[in-house]
């Protein structure tokens, strides 16, 4: 586990007041969290690996014509056990689609290419059927993703007999300091903070090994955000893998081990959280450096331009139109992954 240090936004925060860190796994859970033999030699202990994932949709523009939009293009990502990987990018730019692709809940008209490997083996729909809800779980943005007509205790994704399930639910809810009887409430009866904890608790119930958290803290205040992300950090410390999808770089850096920088549908760089410190020279891609420098605490440096639209992506590097260092090479073709100083980057001019 890499500790974050240095920089204004790079420090690892302490847990919220009065919480004890529970590190040992509760053995009452059915599925033990034993690490299995790593099959993917290149990445060592990668639990989940996404390779060159592309997702496109055919939509009707006004009238009768159809156009193709490509919200995700050649995306790479790898998550290992015990670490939190944050996917940081602009809100609404398609990061949720990545989560949906991993969970296998893409819309019917999605065209997908590339590979998703779980424990070294391809993640086929059949495998997903078995793993979803048990080994791979999802923490959605809000309780709006739950059925409003069912009590929350009944909506946890675990295949057990009723008594055993209720016992597990109660245990998990207690661990997150939810008051007695929360499982009998309906989603609309939960306050913001309680709802957060219910969602996280539900995701951890079945001994999940990979947890995908999609924008878990939309527009919340600092204290609630900290608590929510702290829970995720705890889960990673127990040996699970956590994928945190967010638009807030500062938040991500407080809790993540590695950060994947998401831009226009692809990941430009995968850096360690430590690299985001000082003047950003530890970063590899010009966009990551720009992102770091744009934070209010780091100079608030802005520069012109916008992300390309998913129906009109440039030919070469997606960042080239805005990049100060762009050369003909950059406009001609997309750069491939280059491993560099403990992370990787897609750039011809990476330092």
């Amino acid at each position: 586990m890499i500790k974050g240090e240095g920089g204004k936004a790079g420090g690892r925060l302490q847990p919220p007041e009065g919480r004890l860190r529970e590190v040992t796994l509760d053995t009452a859970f059915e599925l033990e969290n034993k690490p299995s033999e790593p099959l993917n030699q290149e990445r060592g202990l990668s639990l989940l690996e996404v390779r060159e994932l592309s997702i496109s949709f055919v939509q009707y523009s006004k009238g009768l014509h159809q156009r193709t939009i490509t919200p995700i293009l050649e995306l790479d990502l790898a998550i290992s056990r015990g670490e939190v990987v944050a996917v940081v990018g602009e809100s609404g730019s398609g990061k949720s689609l990545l989560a949906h692709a991993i969970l296998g809940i893409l819309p019917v008209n999605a065209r997908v290419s590339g590979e998703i490997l779980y424990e070294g083996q391809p993640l086929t729909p059949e495998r997903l059927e078995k793993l979803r809800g048990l080994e791979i779980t999802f923490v959605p943005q809000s309780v709006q993703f739950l059925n409003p007509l069912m009590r929350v205790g009944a909506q946890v994704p675990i295949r057990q007999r009723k008594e055993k399930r209720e016992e597990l639910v109660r245990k998990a809810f207690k661990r997150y300091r939810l008051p007695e009887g929360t499982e009998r409430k309906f989603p609309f009866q939960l306050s913001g903070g309680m709802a957060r904890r219910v969602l996280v608790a539900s995701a951890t119930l079945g001994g999940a090994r990979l947890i995908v958290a999609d924008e878990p803290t939309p527009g919340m205040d600092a204290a609630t955000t900290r608590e929510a992300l702290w829970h995720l950090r705890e889960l990673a410390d127990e040996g699970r893998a956590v994928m945190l999808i967010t638009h807030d770089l500062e938040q991500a850096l407080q809790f993540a081990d590695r950060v994947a920088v998401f831009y226009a549908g692809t990941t430009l760089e995968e850096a360690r959280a430590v690299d985001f410190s000082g003047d950003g020279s530890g970063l590899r891609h010009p966009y990551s450096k720009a992102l770091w420098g744009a934070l209010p605490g780091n100079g608030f440096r802005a520069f012109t331009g916008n992300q390309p639209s998913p129906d009109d992506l440039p030919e070469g590097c997606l960042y080239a139109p805005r990049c100060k260092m762009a050369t003909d090479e950059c406009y001609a073709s997309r750069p491939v992954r280059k491993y560099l100083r403990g992370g990787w980057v897609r750039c011809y001019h990476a330092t």
Partner: protein
Amino acid sequence: MRVPNSHPGKVEDYSKSDLRRGYWWRIGGEEGRITLALPSAWLPSFNRRQRVLMGIVLLTSVVLLVVVSSYLISDERLATDLEARDIPPTLEHPFGTDWLGRDMLIRTIKGLRLSMGIGVLAAGTSVAIALVLGILAASGLRLADAIVSWLVDFFLGLPHLVFLILIAFVLGGGATAVVIGVALTHWPSLARVVRAEVLQLRTSDYIQASLHFGCSRWWIARKHYLPHLVPQLIVGFVMLVPHAILHEASITFLGFGLSPHRPAVGIILSEAMRYLSAGKWWLALMPGLALVLLVGVIFALGDNLRALLNPYTAHE
């Protein structure tokens, strides 16, 4: 959760997925009230929206055919011909002739046109009432909302056929009575839809911002509400027309509607009842079938329109 149709590792060809519904193409409504099947090999590949549009064009032309041909066929062909009485369907008289020797096909077409005219009028009036009352209810005046909502509940609770007959009876029968009767009994459901839409729109951020920019309420109603409501109104109207036609037919059949001088399909059917026991089945069956077919075509048209205008299914 929706099950994906593809998974990583395989690039799917979109044009092929259209054909996964099978060899036959469907033109027409999804639920297939009326569908035409054509071998896909004959047609170039159209996307779903284009197909729905083609369905709409086709169905509309069928309806127009009925209307136009009824005007083109002169009334002379409807003259009595006592030598050709009571002929069952033949090539010369596809629907047979009636007891006065009139060709049933021509009678049916003219009758259908009349029925449709009344149906359109009744449906149009109904939609107009629904629009006005719906907007009134959602306008923010508590009293108006209370009154209109109560009226909606009241009318929805009535058995509308009984009420319809009552109105037609009170107004003394005739075309106006039918139009008024149908309009008065069918506005509530559409009014509810209009009211719900406008209520939802009123509280949305962009309407409030619009007021903040100094736009007048009339302008907002015209530019914001109306475009939002028009698709619902069109679909509501198209679905109401066959309803109205059938009601007209049944009321006239029961004797409360049009007089025999204006031979809509209801009259044709009611007169035919007398001869049914004499074995002259074509007098009732052919017009009845034609009516059902026309109604079905218009329903399918409404279905297609709804599929096209519904933003949720619009991108499939």
